[in-house]
């Protein structure tokens, strides 16, 4: 114990607590209160009218909420299976190579540091029907141009860059986990004749299970918050509100439609859903931690 007297520690923690309270907890609880009000206009002067659970009841008959929820769940599935899955495969491969690991680490992580707005605008140019990159390639191949953001394709096309951008993030986390496994364990395994796939399945994966669990939790909660890239790529849930996620639909209602009370109710729903899913995932993936 470095300090016998704990008081200074609490004093040092106070500024951070004040900042968190002002900029996170107060808005959070205020938002819950707003979800019971009918507020017309952002920053509405004169407050709002108390409407009880009306905003929550409205969600049950709102078709776009259904679309947004479905899209968010789809994104969640993609994030867990594809994003974390690809990241895991890449990390396992890079961990196995002796030279050039740093190069791959940098290259795969790079999209994470590029702003979502820039990626959104870039993919906008890829998908454009007239003169877009993808259609120019098709034209060169003698094919007909494709409407990439059509009713059927749009959600896949919007999800693609979101998934692509964050693979590197999970890749680095998993790779760090793999690097933490002591070399001796592999050496003992080698003596016992365990190599290749068996080594990965019986040694690497169980030892980084906690890291994978963290990645899955981050991917799930991240999917609930997805906003910037889809908003730039397909504003207002284009086409026809079919690419709305819960985050974009909450923004649409609050800032565009200026139905602030309803937007607040949607954000409360996002938080509740996030807590529920995270709790369920933790329960599902409960696994004995291996200490080495």
């Amino acid at each position: 114990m470095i300090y016998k007297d704990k008081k200074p520690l609490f004093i040092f923690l106070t500024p951070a607590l004040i900042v968190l309270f002002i900029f996170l907890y107060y808005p959070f609880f205020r938002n819950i209160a707003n979800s019971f009000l009918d507020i017309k206009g952002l920053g509405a002067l004169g407050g709002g009218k108390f409407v009880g659970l009306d905003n929550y009841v409205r969600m049950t008959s709102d078709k776009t909420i259904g679309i947004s929820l479905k899209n968010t769940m789809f994104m969640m599935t993609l994030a867990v299976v594809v994003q974390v899955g690809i990241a895991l495969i890449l990390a396992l491969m890079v961990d196995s190579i002796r030279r050039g690991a740093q190069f791959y680490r940098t290259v795969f992580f790079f999209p994470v540091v590029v702003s979502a707005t820039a990626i959104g605008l870039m993919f906008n140019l890829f998908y454009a029907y007239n003169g877009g990159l993808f259609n120019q390639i098709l034209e060169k191949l003698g094919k007909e141009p494709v409407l990439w953001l059509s009713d059927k394709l749009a959600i896949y096309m919007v999800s693609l860059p979101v998934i692509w951008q964050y693979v590197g993030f999970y890749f680095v986390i998993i790779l760090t986990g793999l690097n933490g496994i002591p070399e001796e364990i592999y050496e003992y395994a080698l003596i016992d004749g365990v190599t290749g796939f068996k080594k990965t399945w019986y040694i690497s994966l169980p030892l980084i299970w906690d890291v994978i669990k963290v990645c899955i939790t981050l991917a799930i909660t991240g999917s609930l918050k997805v906003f910037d890239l889809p908003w730039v790529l397909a504003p207002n849930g284009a086409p026809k509100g079919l690419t709305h996620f819960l985050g974009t639909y909450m923004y649409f209602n609050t800032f565009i439609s200026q139905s602030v009370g309803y937007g607040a109710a949607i954000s409360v729903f996002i938080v509740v859903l996030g807590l529920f899913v995270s709790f369920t995932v933790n329960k599902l993936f409960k696994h004995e931690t291996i200490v080495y």
Partner: protein
Amino acid sequence: MKKLVAVLLVLAMTVSLFAACNKTPASSDATPTPENKETSTPTPAPKTIELRTVSMFGGTDPSAADYQKLIKDFMDANPNIVINDESATADETWKARVTTDFSSGNDPDVVFYFTGADAKQLIENGKVVSIEEIRKQYPDYAKDITDAAMSFMQEFDGNHYAVPIRGFYEGLFCNKDLFDKYGLELPTDWAKLETAIKKFKEEGIVPIAASFSDVPHYWIEHLIFAEGGYEDHKVNPTDTYPESWAKGLSYFKTLKDLGAFPVDVNATKNDIVTNMFYDKKAAMILDGSWIIGGMKEPETVVVLPVPPTPGGKKDPTSIIGGFSSGFYISTNAWNDPDKRDAAVKFVMHMTSKNAISLFAKVAGAPAADVPAPEGITEVMKAGIAMGGQAKEIDMPIDSRMSKEAWTFLVSSIGAIADGQLTPEEVLTEVVNKNK
């Protein structure tokens, strides 16, 4: 001792945190100017007054440079007034920022903002001061503004609050060179419009540049206007909607089925389709007078009123336009004895004939009786002529409807054009949200 140091450190951190939040610009009184240094007899320097102004003349607005020059001229002429200007491009986020500033007590002193539905809550909550009130003390306030322009500024309570500078009109801008190339007549009636759409479609040119996912606003207003005429267009549907609104909106499907719009009309952005028009890849675009600022070849563009639909009640010359924004003085600035005079001076400077000439030279109609700008382009001439010939001029529908109802209507256009929703279904919901 350790405890004392810890407590002092925490105090210092906390104080610096809040000090950072408290934006207190250094007073110019503190730094004497060279002129002051040279003065032999010390005379009290006039008190420096800071005005916080907010406007939409920011970003790529074609009047941004003129606006900044006018501010500089004003500060040169009034050295004791410092203008802290916060201009940005006007969009929904900017509007929300302005209302949030007012609601959180961070009222700007002068704001160039919209009128009608957008200004209603500012007026209802006494956040801005009326021109009638200002004129009791400053009879020359807004004296150069024409009665016609001022009539558009009248609010729900019968008072006027904003001083306009430039009006706007909306019309069907046509790349006349493309019409000439394919031997087509300009769309002065609905039949000619349909003929042009079919021909351009055949020739691989997008007939009408439009984006339903981004800005279908102009087409909503104009199709309702073309079908229902001036009287029906003026309706604010709070209890029911006129039949003509549903009929007018049904033309979205008619036009889409004819191939009038880009293939990706439901997903593309307004900037992209506007560039298609500028680059002659699209023949027509329905937009406001502000679009002229970005035209590469304005001599080859003309603007016409949208023709009435078959059997529609609109007069062929009638247009949507008017004055929908102006300078407001906040009640806070008006009640501050130091700022009142400075704010009035600033607005009078910005709404003088000289300033209005500068604003009007880009596009739109001037709010004062000033000579026509020199060297105006063909399309600007066509716009002025269209405004002069208009039998009726009405403001856009969204200046009357609630934001929620209007947004719902806007976001439903793609589904109406594809036949997935009927105009009646959408309008019933619009009325519910507009109550």
